């Protein structure tokens, strides 16, 4: 029953599939990367292949998860632009589907699927990272709407986004988890300023977002007023699944390292072979775990917490592979000819790897989730759970 669908997918990728290396570099030419991503998604949409499992009422295809698997199989080897779209399709979309009003879904999901609107996630703040619930961006009631003031940070692709899901504090008089509300924010609204943050790699994918008296309407509330923590938790669980299913890739892949080892004549070096074998197993673990989790999602189980396994492992394997590349490349990995376009790849991979241990929740947070929610271990005593937000001890 999926055969016809499979043929359509195959035809699409035969015509429009792009090899990942033929796509503009996310790192070196982000604007071209984003433009190519939008074009790709629009072509998918035109071919009737966007939003496979999303309801038809919101522009999706309304198909079962087995069709998604078929799509993934046919897409293998082609660029999916997941780095740009994961936040929308993997995180914001599912939250709107679960908690949005009918009107919000009809208004936002179709343009998301057409890539007319790219979405971002406005959660973290300078003072609220791991302790997200302590955020202080304030949404103050104003008429029938709200006025928002505060600062967000680490907002991936905010400078290329049209909308975002924003978490803000609507009631500082109750304990921190209870006074939050989620909103849809128009990134072009007056009062929003986006400032790219340069990362250790030199790239600028993250941003600081300043909100200065930004007006939101009553229709922009997602879920309940004061129910923002529940919405955020749902979004973060979807994020872990998305990161597990489609780990954010370092450009230094296992295949790239194999090619490097060949070029350096190390195919028979027992030490390289052994470490490569270890990296291969680690990569298999990550890939097969992701596939298992995706299967669990399909049969309707909630793998939200277990998905932290995938996130931890993906970060670890990225570090392992990057370090192996450095070892094989030797002095050339850290000092290379300026004319060699790939000369800096190994150093870039090594600088990129630490970000995977931080973005989407630090490793400490993931381990706590696994310990408490999967293994059922007792929580730490938390002094601040019942204290009104305004009385809490906070950084800076």
């Amino acid at each position, binding site marked *: 029953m999926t055969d016809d669908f499979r043929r359509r997918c195959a035809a699409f990728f035969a015509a429009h599939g792009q090899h990942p290396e033929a796509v503009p570099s996310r790192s070196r030419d982000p604007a071209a990367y984003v433009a190519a991503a939008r074009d790709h998604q629009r072509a998918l949409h035109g071919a009737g292949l966007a939003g496979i499992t999303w309801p038809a009422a919101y522009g999706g295809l309304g198909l079962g998860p087995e069709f998604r698997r078929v799509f993934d199989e046919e897409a293998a080897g082609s660029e999916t632009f997941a780095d740009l779209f994961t936040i929308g399709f993997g995180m914001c979309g599912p939250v709107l589907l679960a908690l949005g009003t009918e009107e919000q879904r009809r208004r936002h999901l179709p343009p998301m699927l057409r890539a007319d609107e790219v979405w971002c996630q406005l959660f973290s703040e300078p003072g609220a990272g791991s302790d997200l619930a302590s955020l202080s961006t304030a949404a103050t009631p104003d008429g029938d709407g709200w006025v928002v003031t505060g600062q967000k940070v680490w907002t991936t692709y905010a400078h290329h986004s049209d909308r975002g899901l924003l978490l803000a504090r609507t009631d500082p008089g109750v304990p921190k988890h209870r006074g939050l509300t989620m909103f849809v924010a128009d990134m072009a609204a007056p009062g929003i300023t986006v400032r790219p943050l340069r990362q250790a790699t030199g790239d600028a994918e993250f941003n600081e977002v300043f909100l200065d008296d930004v007006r939101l309407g009553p229709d922009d509330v997602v879920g309940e007023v004061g129910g923002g923590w529940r919405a955020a938790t749902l979004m973060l669980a979807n994020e872990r699944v998305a990161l597990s299913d489609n780990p954010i890739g370092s450009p230094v892949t296992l295949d790239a390292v194999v090619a490097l080892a060949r070029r350096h004549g190390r195919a028979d070096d027992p030490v390289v072979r052994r470490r490569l*074998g270890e990296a291969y197993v680690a990569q*298999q673990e990550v890939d097969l775990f992701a*596939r*298992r989790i995706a299967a669990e999602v399909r049969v309707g189980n909630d793998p939200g917490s277990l998905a932290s396994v995938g996130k*931890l492992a993906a970060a670890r394997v990225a570090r392992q592979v990057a370090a192996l590349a450095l070892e094989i490349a030797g002095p050339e990995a850290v000092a290379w000819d300026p004319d060699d376009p790939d000369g800096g790849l190994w150093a870039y991979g090594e600088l990129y790897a630490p970000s995977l241990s931080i973005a989407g929740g630090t490793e*400490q947070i993931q381990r706590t989730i696994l310990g408490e929610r999967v293994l059922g*271990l007792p929580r730490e005593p938390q002094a601040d759970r019942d204290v009104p937000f305004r009385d809490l001890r906070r950084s800076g």
Partner: protein
Amino acid sequence: MALYAPEHDDLRAAVRGLLEKAADSAAVRRTVAAGGFDAALWQRMSGELGLAGLAIPEEHGGSGYGPVELGVVLEEIGRANLPSPYLTTVLAGVALSTAGAADDLLPVVAAGERLATVSFGTGWTLDGDRVTGLVDHVPDGTTADRLVLVGAPGGVVVDLAGADRRPLRTMDLTRGQARITLAGAPARPFAAPHGWAGRVGAVAAVLVACEQVGGADRVLETASAYAGERVQFGRPIGSFQAVKHLLADMLVALELARSTQQHALGLLAAPGADPAAVDAAARSARVACSRAFVQISSDAIRVLGGIGYTWEHDAHLYFRRARASAALFGAGDDLDRLATHAGLVPS
């Protein structure tokens, strides 16, 4: 598409039910002290539950299931850390039935009336129907009735009744090994299809991985439960991040390893799977599950502290089995072969 269907859950429940009653820690320790295995339990496993014949074709007295079902049973045996000839006997059954050999032996193996084991060692030579050589480190080699030597182009069945078998001392107290010296021992050679030895090797690796995952799962359960109960500094030690995160890392190792195990099991059961893919998956599973079981059973001792380091606690029995099972059936060259699978073909 999940690997296990509801009927697997039933099989698992039946085996677990039996082992929880008949093979609790005290029973396992009695068996360990006496040496060998619990013959009465073996009779129930093979008789009542028909487990010995699970993967032997129906025409040879088995029930015609495959590796997935063996995997379910072995996970449970691993959980119980049971001294049992199950692993070696069903592996011998797979070796013989996939070669289409020893039709007369299969029914008694399926019935649990004969025990068999397998070696991938190469230190033997065949001369007509006589085999000569040294076959070392044979698991269950002291208790098996028959030994299947896996070679190319085919294999040999050796009757161990009169063989010189020297029991080795083992780190693992739940599974014996023997050094078997064959001096013109009567043997039944048989032919096997192309790729048979590799296939049997893959099955061996994956079945061991199943046992390891079962053992690791149980050890993690035990350590987590202890961490939830043991109070120090006025609260359960599992509420401290140092312990919680150590346990979380054990969970990570287990779930990653389980993913490789389930994938390999699924490939073994898939008709017409590419042998190279099967080899890669089986070796990956062996590496991942061996490491996970060693890590988890070793770190469990750290979580349990002094109490986990005593002879009376079962933690060391699992750790011993973890270390020993990682060395079964010639696991030594896995990483090198996996480098080839990754694309680094030696010149």
